[in-house]
């Protein structure tokens, strides 16, 4: 089964709990990146984000077999969060490690 890159965009406050839960369940490295999003949807933005119109987001990335996506989304659903999480997958064409 091919590996895919799962990218999640969540509120900064939720990044740690989501990352920990995914790593524990899927036993895969989880990358967390801070992002400023000049978004259009401010429905779940904090007041400070509404003021600056910049959403303070975290991008969480992990590579996992395509078949594990439902489990990962299930974990997301179970983890207690403060805001919505947006996700998408992209194909991983090749991967490796150079020491």
């Amino acid at each position: 089964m091919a590996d895919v890159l799962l990218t999640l965009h969540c509120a900064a406050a939720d990044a740690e709990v989501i990352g920990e839960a995914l790593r524990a369940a899927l036993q895969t490295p989880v990358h967390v990146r801070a992002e400023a999003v000049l978004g259009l949807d401010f429905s779940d933005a904090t007041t400070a984000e509404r003021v600056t119109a910049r959403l303070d987001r975290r991008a969480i990335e992990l590579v996992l077999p395509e078949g594990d996506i439902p489990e990962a989304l299930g974990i997301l659903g179970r983890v207690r969060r403060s805001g919505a999480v947006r996700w998408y997958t992209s194909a991983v064409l090749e991967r490796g490690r150079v020491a």
Partner: protein
Amino acid sequence: MLRELLAKALSFRFLVLAAALVVAGIGGWTFANLPIDAYPDIAPTQVKIILKAPGMTPDEVETRILAPIEQEMLGLPKQAVLRATAKYAIADITIDFIDGTDIYWARQQVSERLAGVMGDLPAGVNGGLAPISTPLSELFMFTIDGPQSLEARRTVLDWTIRPALRTVPGVADVNALGGYVRTFEVRPDPLALGAAGLTMADVKAAVESGNRNDGAGRLANGENALIVRAVGAIKTLDDLRALVLHAPGGRVLRLGDVATISNGSLTRYGAVTADGHGETVEGLVIALRGADARKVVTGVKERLAELKHNLPPGMTINVFYDRSDLIARAVGTVEEALLEATILVVVLLVVFLGDWRAAAIVATTLPMAALICFILMRGWGLTANLMSLGGLAIAIGMLVDGAVVVVENVVERLSAARAEDQSPRLHHVFRATSDVIVPVSAGLLIIALVFLPLVSLEGLEGKLFAPVALTIIFALVAALLLALTLVPVLASLGLKSGVHGEPWLMRQLAPRYSALLGAAFARQKLVYGVAGLGLAAAVVAYGAVGKTFMPQMDEGSVIAQLVKSPSIGLAHSVAGDMAAQRVLKAKVPEVDRVISRVGADELGLDPMGLNETDTFITLKPQSEWRGSKEAIIEDMRHAMALLPGISASFTQPIEMRVSEMLTGSRGDLAVKIFGPDGATLGKLAGQIEGILKATRGATEVMTVANDRVDYLQIDIDRLAAGRAGLSVDAIEDTLRGQLEGVRAGVVAEGNRRIPIVMRGAGGVEANPAAFSDTLLRGADGQTVRLSDVAHVHPVAGPVKIDHENGSRYALVQAFVSGRDLVGYVEEAKAAVQAKVPMPAGYRVVWGGQFENQQRAAARLSLVVPAALLLIFFVLLATLRSLRAALLILVNIPFAMVGGIVALWAAGQYLSVPASVGFIALLGIAVLNGLVLVSYFRQLRAEGVPMAEAVRLGAERRLRPVLMTASITAFGLVPLLFATGPGSEIQQPLAIVVIGGLVSSTLLTLVLLPILFERFGESPEERANG
């Protein structure tokens, strides 16, 4: 950083609102508890030494007291000036330290040096440092009236009222004046003394050694101990009479056998009279330096109310000066102006913005900025007074500038926000505010910068105007903070989104302005010509406007300073005072009470001679006046002219003390002639007095340099005295005992200390011939007359001798009215230089109010250009264009045109407050220029052609320019029409700013666009644009 602050404020809106409420609460509490007085503390660090030298002439005081003390005090660290005056029986030494010196440190330095020199002073000289007071310290005065004798009233004041009031927090002392201080008086009969073989010195020694209670230690009495107490103190007149002088051969000689023992009084150096009825007793409460005047007066009133029930029947305390009245009226004037200005500003905001919500949000800045300002004032140690609150009133129009710009931009942005724009509303508010952060903060920074020079002023003007500048700077800082925090928060909560229409006023003004601008561009030469004419008119007006230091502040009360013949006795001086009181009450119906104080007070804080009187005049309520206060004083002047031998000059309580504090003299102008010889000084002073009197504008000119007081000089013949067995010391002691009296201990009556005074047999006090025959008893028992051992003859001597920094000087004082002080002094100076040649070693110093004006002008001529340079740098940093920054500065002279013309048209003088007005104007003119030029540059950056950019920019910026100018001007309108105390200071300032704003706004809106089009860009920029 400011953007961060703004973002945080909008992110925590409810926290900001809560913080605003808390700050408002603290500000309100601070205002209620802010120390309050009519004026700021204007006193330098000053230490006064007052020494009483009973019976000594000014010459003796100079050589025996002033000389050693001056020698010791000159060279004290941080000393600014050392002034000293020798008068009859009084040495008054004043040491001014440089500003900022701690008063307690200064007193310690003086105290240490004084202790070192006290041992070298003649016996009988007593006194020391005066209380820590300032010219503003005399804040409560009252008379004690009733059927009781003057002695009984004085006793109540000295021993009941004074101790009670001294415990009120903030009271430094209570000066007691008038009446008689009770003594136990011993008048030995010289013949009886001679028969008994005793001298006055023997009697004095016997009285001193026969008046003591003491303990002798403990005695064992079984298991107990007895404390042994020996009682021998004199308690009654009979105790004194029973005192045994000696008992040769068992024949007891008592004091009562050779002397008359009775109740008497201390020699009087002054008296108080009231309302032409007779003498009375006066109490004067002196506050500690830095005390909260309002609290002290309240405390004093409460204590007096408690004491009222313990006074003897019929005795009343009648207050004739209560500083809290002046405080209430002065602060009330400013508070009223503040309130009226706030209402005017709010109305203008509604008119200009056409949106009551926006107006309400901007108006919130006013009370909030004021409340934050009070907190900062307390932190800085400023008191609430005429000047500091006046600063707030001046700033009121400027405080809303930042908020206006922010709210206007928010309204604009919310109107412009398209429906499809999904950015949050908070973001629109954030962007709208952050877009104007730089101009708002630069604008407020510029206005704060223009007021900074005032903080650098020195002397009296510094102490008066530094609080004004600091208050304005505090309020502007608060306004900036609010413009970037509370105002956007309120705007985000209160302003509605959607299209806001132009308000009616702008719909009327905009097309007219557009037409005016078009006409101006079409006739540019005419505009330049009009502007040039304006400048020429300003130069002419500047020459025509008189220059003075400060307008005279109306304190409500009037003081008439009466001067009589220098040799006048107390009784005749008192009679003259009462005649003056009766004339004033009869001829001037507005006069309510007249209380006169002649001579020196008990503490010696104001050591006047017997020929000098301060007459305190209280007026009836203004509703009962026939005319202005000037007219009333003129009536008083005419009334006083009816009295022969009395010359009167008029001043006010605080004004008088401030003059005395600053120059050691009274009057608008104090000319000091320094030199070594008294006669030459007198001659020069006389010549200068004549010139000052002949110069137009002088109302009262006086000098005491040529006044001579009559002395009865006793030249002791050493041979004759030695032959009679009399030493010089013994003769002088005896003579002093005859007239002044000699202290011989005290009698304790409860908490009272009654002095025992020995005097001559009496009858000689008013009889020089009898005094010359005073019997003196030598050591060998031989009795001789004074005239046998001395040459007794009348001579004339000086009334007083003045020193400054150890040099003698003669003083000529002048009061000037109906003319500017500087003009008067310049004319008089030129005349003195031409007509009075100064001998070698003599020099003239021109001081008084004039000196303050010269110092202030010199300082402002240095620091205002420095402030302009700073403003230039701020403009350069904001606009990043040398041409643009210079163009804005070019606007300044045109702003001054209206100010100086308005001043001239109003008949006001160019004083320090008017200069403060010009300084404020400078800031507003620069701010208006900045608003316009920065927008021109913005349009040019957007690619708008130059001709269109200046027209479009000017039309779009019409509203903010008109708003800031009119709000500032209308904010000052209440000060223009205020009539209470202090309004005299604020009026010239308001006239300058309002007049200047008219010319400045007109020229900003018409001339600046033309100038920018012509000079705003370099040829390269124009080519690139």
